[in-house]
């Protein structure tokens, strides 16, 4: 497992990270305009309503775009090449992630490939959502 930079949750993101520790992809939806959004904020980025609620996303989505990185970041030296991707969740929002469970080649990674979330525990606070092709073993 790469030695990743470990983030620190903030008051607006604490529920996301608490959910991640339980293996739940917690994102928010606006009750006023109905749109789901990410990253976490205590108001809707589309309509500014504060009437927003956390919910657990399906964890399914599609590979929106990516690079296959050959110049590893610090802590990732033993893992290059690796995929840095942006996935679009079925609920709409996009997030950055890695794609695992597949050899990192362009042939294996067509745009819009269906992907699903899996979890990688870093420490007692931070568990990261990582994605894999639907049905792939990790």
């Amino acid at each position: 497992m790469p030695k990743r930079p470990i983030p620190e949750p903030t008051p607006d993101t604490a529920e996301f990270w608490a959910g991640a520790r339980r293996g739940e992809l917690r994102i928010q939806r606006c009750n006023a305009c109905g749109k789901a959004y990410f990253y976490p904020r205590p108001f809707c980025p589309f309509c500014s309503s504060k009437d927003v609620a956390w919910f657990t996303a399906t964890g399914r989505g599609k590979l929106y775009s990516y690079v296959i990185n050959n110049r590893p970041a610090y802590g990732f030296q033993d893992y290059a090449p690796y995929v840095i991707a942006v996935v679009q969740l079925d609920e709409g929002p996009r997030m950055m992630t890695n794609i695992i469970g597949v050899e990192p080649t362009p042939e294996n990674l067509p745009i819009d490939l269906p992907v699903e979330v899996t979890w990688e525990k870093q420490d007692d606070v931070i568990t990261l959502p990582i994605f894999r092709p639907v049905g792939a073993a990790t």
Partner: protein
Amino acid sequence: MSLRMTAAIVGAAETDSVAIQPDMSSLMLHAEAAFNALADCGLTKDDVDGVLCAGQSPVSVAEYLGITPTYIDGTSVGGCSFMIHVRHAAAAIQAGLCSVALITHGESGRSRVGMGGWGSSKQMPGAQFEEPYGVAGPPTRFTIPILRHMHEYGTTHEQLASVAVATRRWAEKNPRAMMRDPITIEDVLNSRMIAYPVHLLECCLVTDGGGALVVVSAERAKDFPKKPVYVLGTGESSEHSMISQMHDFTESRAFKVSGQLAFNEAKIERKDIDHAMFYDAFAHTPMFALEALGFVGKGESGPFFEEMRTAPGGDFPLNTNGGGLSYTHTGMYGMFAIQESVRQLRGEAPAQLPDLRTSIAHGVGGMFHAAGTLILTNDERA
């Protein structure tokens, strides 16, 4: 209110070198560029009452130069900051907040002398939602949209590579350019893969250098030794702080907004642009600019570059200094794009084009995070 033709660039210069300078700190580069630009227009630091810069605080630069300003602007949103500074300087001059605005850039991007630290707090959005995934600077973030553009519009690897080839042809004509050897599409595609789909020769250089501009009101512009370069149109915008949150990976919203503002203010058409400088951090950046600024339709930039229309002899001369890909790229390259627009409009460029009246300098900040656009002219009757 419009800034159209209210201000002019009367002083413009780069640092003596724009290559690798481990003996120069960031502030030294700011100062060298500032003194070169002031000398270019026959002023001294005591004439300056507006100080605008990015990277360093304008407080630091004003102190270093010995200036007590009446107007300071530290807009620091990446490489397009300087386009935005020209816009803000013009507005400040029109509002009477200052009369001689000095805009400086100095960056020890390669040697990292006298620079602020890398990285951000572990609590910033990017630290929480992008950095854990092994991003390693712009080559792994700025480039993520490319495959989506290829997927939706059929843009090819050869078309991406052709941007680097066309730009290098301009660099061949510029003695100050760091990379001047001719390259082919095959050379680009055979160069080291940095982060698929991006090869080494599709990435900008990393250098040390700076540049500075002196902006005054259009009424005063003819009181200086060089041919004035008038501000015809300006724009700025921003979109996201994390590339994953870009609204549409095939077009930059910030580019579109900034570009349209500039054209609206300039009151000219795309066809009236004689020369263009589009910030080229990577080969795809000018492709996105060409589309977002409305010079071609969405998804049409690939064939445009492949036909070498932006290269010497083409009908759309672009990045005629050799660009960030082959000339210099300190980190916040936008200053150098403006410098080349000014040189071309003055008739001082190494690869001088004939009969120029207008130039557009369009910058990106961060990784499609922000944008700034300037439409400039040497025609006082514009």
